[in-house]
């Protein structure tokens, strides 16, 4: 290979990279693997357009600038025996390349401003949802005027076995939850985003919504999805150990389906209320307790109660000791540690079930049954 050919090979690399990137970015459509998704909201489409315009501007400037540079690299080489020029300033040129970019920026700023104002316009929402972030799960609460309040937690549903590579990973690995947020299509939904412990950020790319969840403050954001479908996202702000494991799934359904779902959830809530007064057998409690434990406690206390971030439950002095103390920890947590106060997160039925479960599972076999009413009374004291 001649030295010239060798040079051309080397030089090809830059433009090729650039071209590759442009092509790769341009093929992006819905939920692309390369590019920002266009999303299913009007705002999302605008944001996508902004992104493509600014990318386009950058590519054009890049081609010009790198073009000049590579021309120089090829034709103004010492090995070609050129004598260097001596010019080294020109006020006119300097003014030109200060002013021209300035005007390009102004052109860019105009659509950016309109889109931003639209993102900030949270008025006239038809539905309000409070999104509260916890380490490491989301809580959704629908603010409706009448009937039972609907509120639930949404936890990672991917099994630990998949994460630790002992089982094949499913299609929605790490992007699946036990209970998704359900929203009606074509409805302006306002999110009131806050957090219970540290900072988190609620991000669903297809809805073009990202809002930080900040303890003690409520941030507003909104969306209006125009297509039925399932949209997935993740927490975007580092929030500790399991930051990578608190996904978001939004299920956008038709208005009728939504109404049906909502009524069913209200009925479920009413039923839970009814359960509060009931007395359960050990088997019933254990069955419910296992479900509650797996979705709320397992991350820190281990699938077999062996511990992890939290200490072991198997053989724990608390789980095999005084019930009152055990309930205290479950309800109020241990301040200054990762052990949160679950009293506000779990209803009394679930709390009773999970405490019972901890006292009887993992070889603890205490034989105690805690009833919802016990939790209720304990909270009152």
């Amino acid at each position, binding site marked *: 290979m001649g030295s010239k050919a060798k040079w051309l090979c080397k030089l090809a*690399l830059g433009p090729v990279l650039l071209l590759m990137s442009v092509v790769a970015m341009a093929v992006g459509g819905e939920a*692309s693997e390369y590019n920002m998704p266009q999303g299913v909201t009007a*705002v999302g489409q605008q944001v996508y357009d902004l992104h493509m315009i600014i990318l386009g501007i950058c590519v054009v400037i890049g081609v010009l600038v790198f073009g000049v540079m590579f021309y*120089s690299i090829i034709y103004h080489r010492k090995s070609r025996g050129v004598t260097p020029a001596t010019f080294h300033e020109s006020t006119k040129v300097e003014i030109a390349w*200060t002013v021209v970019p300035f005007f390009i920026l102004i052109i860019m700023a105009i659509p950016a401003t309109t889109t931003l104002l639209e993102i900030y316009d949270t008025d006239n929402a038809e539905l309000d949802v409070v999104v509260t972030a916890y380490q490491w799960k989301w809580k959704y609460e629908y603010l409706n005027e009448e009937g039972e309040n609907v509120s639930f937690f949404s936890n990672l549903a991917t099994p630990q076995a998949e*994460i630790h590579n002992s089982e094949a990973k499913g299609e929605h690995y790490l992007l699946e939850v036990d209970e998704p947020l359900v929203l009606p299509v074509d409805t302006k939904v306002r999110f009131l985003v806050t957090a219970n412990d540290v900072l988190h950020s609620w991000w669903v*790319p297809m809805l073009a919504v990202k809002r930080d969840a900040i303890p003690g403050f409520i941030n507003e954001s909104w969306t209006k999805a125009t297509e039925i479908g399932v949209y997935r996202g993740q927490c975007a*702000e580092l929030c500790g*150990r399991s930051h990578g494991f608190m996904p978001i799934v939004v299920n956008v359904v038709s208005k009728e389906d939504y109404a049906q779902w909502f009524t069913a959830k209200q009925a479920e809530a009413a039923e839970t209320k009814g359960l509060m007064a009931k007395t359960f057998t050990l088997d019933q409690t254990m069955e419910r307790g296992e479900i509650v434990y797996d979705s709320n406690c397992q991350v820190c206390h281990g699938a077999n109660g062996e511990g992890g971030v939290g200490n072991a439950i198997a053989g724990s002095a608390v789980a095999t000791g005084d019930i009152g103390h055990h309930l205290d920890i479950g309800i109020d947590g241990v301040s200054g540690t990762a052990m949160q106060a679950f009293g506000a997160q779990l209803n009394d039925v679930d709390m009773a079930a999970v405490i019972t479960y901890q006292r009887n599972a993992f070889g603890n076999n205490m034989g105690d049954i805690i009833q919802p009413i016990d939790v209720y009374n304990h909270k009152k004291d």
Partner: protein
Amino acid sequence: MGDHHHGPAKGLSRWLFTTNHKDIGTMYLWFSFSMFILGGAFAMIIRAELFQPGLQLVEPGFFNQMTTLHGLIMVFGAIMPSFVGLANWLIPMMIGAPDMALPRMNNWSFWILPPTFLLLASTLFMEGGAPAAGWTFYAPLSTTYAGPSVTYFIFCIHVLGLSSIMGSINIIATVMNMRAPGMTYMKMPLFVWTWLITAFLLVAVMPVLAGAVTMMLMDVHFNTSFFSAAGGGDPVLFQHVFWFFGHPEVYIIILPAFGVVSQIIPAFSRKPLFGYDSMVYATASIAFLSFIVWAHHMYTVGMPVAGELFFMYATMLIAVPTGVKVFNWISTMWRGALSFETPMLFSIGFLILFTIGGFTGLMLSIAPADFQYHDSYFVVAHFHYVMVAGAVFSMTAAIYFWLPKWCGRMYNETMGKTHFWISFIGFNLTFFPQHFVGLAGMPRRIPDYALQFADFNMMSSIGAFIYGASQILFLYNVIATIRSGDIVTDEKVWDGAEGLEWTLPTPAPYHTFETPPAVK
């Protein structure tokens, strides 16, 4: 005064007690390189874990410690001290001064660094592990929810700040007072100019960082609630204070790099720097603007829309002086007589890749679009293009450029060029795909990811291993040069190099410019 023309002391005391700017510069450079290797090792752990979906090597808590320490060590241990080392070596030689203005303080500002980083690294072995809240350590994850190592971390930040401030005061005092007669401000080499401005930035913002960590300390140990809403404080306050330091900090990192390439590109273009005056003004305007754009890191925290707009416009504006710099460098090359020795290759690499990083910066400045980019891998790609391909590439160029002057021996050019090409390919393979996964929705700082991100992550990891390995070649080349490189004796090692340092004998003697040179 004749008996003062002595050489260095013997043994360890030469290094411990030295006040010689060249010795101190050398120590800074070796220290920062060792931190570069340590921070790099952490990066290799991160990339190894991310090689495939699933948790393979480390558990998530440790992963967070790795990302945190990697960031802290690279910013405060590798990049910043390396440029201070370069300043020590070069500023006196470039302005015709015999040494730095405050040599004893110079010794101190170096020697407090190694114990500090030792302490920081040792937190890995503490109960609860090293700090794990990211290099941006947002409260309350870094305060109420942090392990006991946070106190040590705060102490470390204080000492690093102290070191930076002492170093900066020294540079300011040297540049203002010790220029050779005739060396007016507008005749100073650009490297000196960019460092002078950087030093002012450092003096202005390091105390702000100290304020932030002091408030953390109070929150952790003295029951205050600066950053806790439960006690009437505000977690977002932390971010404002941090980024008021943090954004100027990124320019602290890049301005000296601008200075370096502004020396090297003219040398290998055999043509004076185009637009010297406008380069100085652009640097100053970047420095000024860097104080009023901090909240572009916080577009999603829920600022009032007026604040959001202000920070968006101000950030977009920064692209203008940045563009001016790029245009000037390219005009310098235009119709020159170019040759492509290793320093020039790294400078051209800088020019291309830094410009790409600047483009993504411009994209990030668009607030509505940043709602999608923020805290995704797109941001990770952006800042590695500006910090690694910007700062680290220019630093590498600087070492190849001035090493022959320093030690009177020439590095191996073939090995240097190989180092460049492996670095360039490895770097792009690592970070270019991160633009894609970021846009497609992969958040940063996660130890495991969804399956659609797998291919690009594997590419990234392979690239990272290549880039990492290329640094071993660099180390070997530098050591081989110092010990047995071909002797050079020309004062001007490079035919196109201009400036006072190239009028000195090669290798540069232990004491230089004891009588000030005459500057035309």
